[in-house]
């Protein structure tokens, strides 16, 4: 149900392509915000802040698409469940990967994987483009995602790698093992 590389439906027009991109970026904003709240509730402030920043970056992409297409902020997008072969959009970090003691490095690792999936998504669109207009637009977005991958990698170099016992908790919620 959750293959690593997703096969998008083939957009026939530029508008269809950009609607998919918009939906994907909005899902990413929503998920990063949700993850930030999750970490805030558990007092993991560093990771909460990081996810807030990621939500902000993804919101920039949403704004960029809306501006390019001259769409209003509340532009409706189709529901892509069943179109994307995985349940979540390609750029979404899975909720189940969260841990209350996770560190920024872990969060960036998940963000990197999400950016990679987004890159692969647009790469598949480039290879299956219905026409040159769509191919060029998909290439542009693929290039943006490649840039994001490098940015996240550079960010990862600036944060400490977690110790092997990062998940050790002297007062764990799970005391029965």
């Amino acid at each position, binding site marked *: *149900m*959750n293959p690593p590389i997703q096969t998008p*439906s083939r957009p026939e027009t530029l508008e*269809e392509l950009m609607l998919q991109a918009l939906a994907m970026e909005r899902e990413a904003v929503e998920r990063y915000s*949700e*993850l930030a*709240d*999750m*970490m*805030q*509730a*558990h007092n*993991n402030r560093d990771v909460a802040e990081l996810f807030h920043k990621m939500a902000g970056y993804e919101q920039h992409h949403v704004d960029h698409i809306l501006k390019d297409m001259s769409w209003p902020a*509340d*532009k*409706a*997008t*189709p*529901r*892509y*469940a*069943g*179109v994307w072969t995985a*349940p*979540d959009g390609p750029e979404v970090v*899975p*909720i*189940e*990967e*969260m*841990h*209350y003691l*996770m560190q920024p490095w872990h969060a960036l690792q998940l963000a990197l994987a999400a950016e990679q999936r987004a890159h692969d998504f647009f790469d598949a669109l480039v290879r299956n483009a219905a026409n040159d207009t769509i191919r060029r637009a998909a290439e542009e977005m693929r290039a943006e995602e490649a840039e994001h991958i490098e940015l996240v990698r550079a960010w990862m170099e600036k944060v400490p790698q977690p110790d092997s016992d990062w998940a050790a908790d002297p007062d764990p*919620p*799970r*005391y*029965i*093992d």
Partner: protein
Amino acid sequence: MNDMAESAALAAADYKSGYKPVWCPGCGDYGVLGAVTRALAILQRPPHEVAVVSGIGCSSRIPAYTSCYGFHGVHGRALAAGTGLKVARPDLTVIVAGGDGDGYSIGGNHFLHACRRNVDLTYIVMDNHVYGMTKGQASPTTEPDWDSKLAPGGTGVRSFHPLVIALAAGANFIARAFSGDSGGAAEIIAQAIRHPGFSFVEVMSPCVTFRPEQKDWKQSVRRTGVPETGDPAQAARRIMTDDGFNIGVLYAGDRPVYARERAATVTPAELEAEFAL
């Protein structure tokens, strides 16, 4: 591409309250909250026309996280409260929610009779096969061989099978969803709300703290490849023979929906007068 556009007047975010969930990071219940709010956005039902009723447990916190009317009630009694509410206020969309312990153990008898009564409400059970809030005891849906310090070697007790029990007891709509597919779960929940009578949606919702192995459910679930059926016998065969990972609508029937036979003959004020000291 699905041509139904999200957005319009009410978005999923409009159904969320300002309270941030305190579920464990990674909990499947976040996905269910997302699915419920998306479902309500699909239906465009105003929040003040919806009531979310729950019992006790991690998942039963859900009413507080929505902007709808909410009632966080007594352990196992959510269906009793929800049934009463729907009968008194048929104009409301009533969603009852909770976990497997709350719904199948403490509230097991209410579950049977809510199915049987077939009042028009939707019951969402976030099933993680464990009591999470009380730190990991085996629940009715726990596998008999699940080994833990609280049940060494497993309970050895056969797991409760809520879907087939709901079918036998008279539920009019039965579906299985997965919290990791929040969009898919939203569509199922929306369909459940639209369907008349008692609609039961069992949502596989992993407990990452006490059942971390449930993270693997994501690799196992699949959308059911068969069309929904209104034939109880066919539905029973499907439910009894699947491996528990088929997602979708498993039964959509046309059993008679409970309706009040007569209008109220007394007002609430008259009723209260009898209890006045």
